[in-house]
C-alpha cells in the first residue's frame, strides 16, 4: 500500500512540470532571438558603379528588375540612394529570404566593398540619400539629452524607450536596436526602411541624428538596478515571468502542502 500512494503525487508534479516546460518552449519559439551583424567601414569608390551593377544584376535584379525599376514583388530603387542600399544589405535584410511581413536582421550576404559598389550603382541611377561619413555618425560631443528627447517623441513608440523593439500591425514589427551600428541607425532614419517613417536631414538634422545615435548606443550600457532586465521591454514580460514563475512555484507548493504524505492506520 505504501507504493500506491507514492506514485500519484509524483505524477502530478511531473504533469505540472511538463506543462510549464511546454509553455516555456512555445514562448521561446514565438519570441525568437536577435543576431548581430558585422559593422562595415566605408571605402567609397567612383568607378565601382559597373561592378555594383554586376552584383545588382546577380543578386537584386530578380525582384527589383534589371533597371532597378521595381516589379510586382519589390519596389523601384531609383532615387532611394546608397543609404538605403547600405541599411538593407549591411543588416542582411536584403537580399530577402522571402516576401514576409517583415525582413529579419541576419548575417549580411554582401561584403562591405560590395555594399559600397551596389550603393554607388543605385546612387548613379537617381541620386537619393547617400551613406554618411564616419564623422557624421560619430557620437563624440553629441547631445545625449536632446537625443533622448527626440527618441522618446519620435522613435520610442515603436522601438521601445531603450530600443528593445515592439510589435506593429499584421505581423510587422519594429526591430530591436541593440545590434545596430551608428551608420545603420543613421541610414534607417534617413531612408525609412519598410514601415518606418522617413526622417530626412531637414526634419531631423544631421546633428540631431548624431544625438539620437548617441542615445541609442548609450542606453545599451545602462545598468539594471532592478535585477534581471527581461529584455527591457516593460511590464508585459515582467508580468508574464512573474505570473508563470509564481504560478509554477505556487502550484508545486500547494501540491506539496496538501499532498497525502503518510498513511494512517484508519485509511
Amino acid at each position, binding site marked *: 500500500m505504501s507504493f500506491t500512494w507514492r506514485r500519484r503525487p509524483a505524477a502530478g508534479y511531473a504533469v505540472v512540470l511538463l506543462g510549464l516546460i511546454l509553455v516555456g518552449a512555445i514562448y521561446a519559439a514565438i519570441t525568437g532571438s536577435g543576431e548581430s551583424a558585422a559593422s562595415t567601414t566605408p571605402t567609397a569608390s567612383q568607378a565601382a558603379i559597373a561592378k555594383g551593377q554586376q552584383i545588382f544584376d546577380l543578386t537584386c535584379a530578380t525582384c527589383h528588375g534589371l533597371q532597378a525599376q521595381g516589379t510586382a514583388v519589390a519596389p523601384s530603387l531609383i532615387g532611394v540612394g546608397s543609404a538605403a542600399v547600405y541599411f538593407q544589405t549591411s543588416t542582411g535584410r536584403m537580399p530577402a529570404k522571402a516576401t514576409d511581413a517583415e525582413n529579419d536582421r541576419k548575417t549580411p550576404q554582401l561584403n562591405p566593398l560590395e555594399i559600397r559598389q551596389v550603393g554607388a550603382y543605385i546612387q548613379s541611377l537617381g541620386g537619393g540619400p547617400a551613406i554618411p561619413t564616419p564623422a557624421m555618425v560619430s557620437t563624440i560631443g553629441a547631445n545625449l539629452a*536632446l537625443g533622448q*528627447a*527626440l527618441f522618446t*517623441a*519620435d522613435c520610442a*513608440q*515603436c522601438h521601445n524607450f531603450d530600443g528593445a523593439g*515592439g510589435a*506593429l*500591425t*499584421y505581423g*510587422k514589427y*519594429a526591430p530591436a536596436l541593440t545590434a545596430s551600428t551608428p551608420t545603420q541607425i543613421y541610414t534607417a532614419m534617413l531612408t*525609412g526602411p*519598410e*514601415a*518606418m*517613417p*522617413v*526622417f*530626412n536631414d*531637414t*526634419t*531631423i*538634422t544631421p546633428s*540631431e541624428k548624431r544625438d539620437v545615435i548617441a542615445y541609442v548606443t548609450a542606453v545599451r550600457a545602462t*545598468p*539594471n*538596478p*532592478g*535585477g534581471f532586465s527581461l529584455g527591457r521591454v516593460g511590464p508585459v514580460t515582467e508580468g508574464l515571468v512573474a505570473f508563470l514563475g509564481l504560478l509554477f512555484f505556487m502550484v508545486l*507548493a500547494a501540491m*506539496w*502542502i496538501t499532498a497525502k*504524505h*503518510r498513511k*494512517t492506520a484508519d485509511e
Partner: protein
Amino acid sequence: MSNPSAPDGPPDEPADAPAAPHRVIGTPPPAQARTLLGDGTGDGTGDGARPAPRDLPADPQNLRQAKTAERIVAALFILSTLASIGFIAAYVGLELNSVDSVLRSNLALGTSMSVAFLALAVGATIWVRHIMPNVELTEQRHPLASDPEAREAFAETFAEGAEASQFVKRPVLRRTLIAATVPLAVAPIVLLRDMGPLPGTTLRHTVWRKGMRLLKYGAYTPISPGEFSSPGGMITVVPDGYQDDPDALASATSIIIKFQPGLLQPPTVMNWTVDNIVCYSKICTHVGCPAALYEQTTHHILCPCHQSTFDAPRGATVLFGPAPRPLPQLPITTDAQGYLVAQSDFHEPVGPSYWERG
C-alpha cells in the same frame, strides 16, 4: 452589555486553570487542548455541555522520522532568523549612492526577505506534515445566530437601557442630539468640494490657437513644408510657447505626417492640410495613450496600448481596436515666414471620451 442574569457564565475558562502546569504563552490551557478541534455539537458559547475530548494521538506515529523532521524544521527556523537579521543588516548597512549599489541593495534585501519567509513557510509545512498528528477531522457548521434566550435577553436589555437613559422621556435631549448629528453627517459631503473646481469647458479645448507655430518636439524648432518634404515622414509637434508646459502638452501634442501626392482623401479635411502634410492629435481617443506608431507602408497609425489602428490618409478613421472615434485633425497652414502654423484649435475635443461626450 453584560447580562447580569447569567451568573455562572459559560464554563469556557475553567476557573483560571489553577493547577495548569507550564502553560506556554500562545497556547490554550492544557485542559482544553484536546477539544479545540471541534466536537460536532457545541458552539463555544452554548449551554455549557462539555463535549467529549477528541482522540488525538499524543505522539506522531514515526518517532524517528519526527525527530529528523524536528531538526530540519529547527534548522529552517534558524535560517529564517538569520535571513531576517541579514535583511536588517542589508537595509542599515548597504550604501545607496550609485545605480550599482542600488542593484546590490535590492538583491540583498530581496534575497534575505525571500529566504526569511520561505524558510518559515517550509518549516511550518514540514512541521505540520511530519510532526503533527495525521488525523482527518470533520467539523459541522453551526447556525450563526445566537440562541433564542440570548436574543430575548438582548432585546430586554436594550429596552431597559433605552428606558433608563430617559431618551424617550426627554424630547429636548433627543432632538438636540439628533440635530447635532445632521451637520456632522453633511460635513464629509462638503469636503467633496476639494475634488476640484469643475473642469468647465477645459476638456473641449487645447492651447492651439490661430497662427501658433508647430515646433518639433525636443529641438523646439519651427518646421517648414519645404524641410518636412519626404513622403512617409512623421514627426511629433508641440505648440510654440507651451513646450515646457506638461499640462498643455498632455492634450496639445500632435503628429504631422507627409504623404505622397494623391493619397489624402476624405474624411480628411483638405483645407486643413498643407502640401500633403496633415496634423493629427497624438492622444488616442480610447484612453489617451500616445498613438504615433505610424507605418509609412500601410499608413496605419497604431496605438501601442490597446492596438487601436487609425487610417492616416482617410482622416485617421478607426480601422481596428477600441478607439471610438478618429484622431482629431488640427487645421494647419503656413505663416509669412513659411513655417507651419495652426489655423485654429482642434474643432473637437482631443483624447478619450468623458461624460458629456459619449
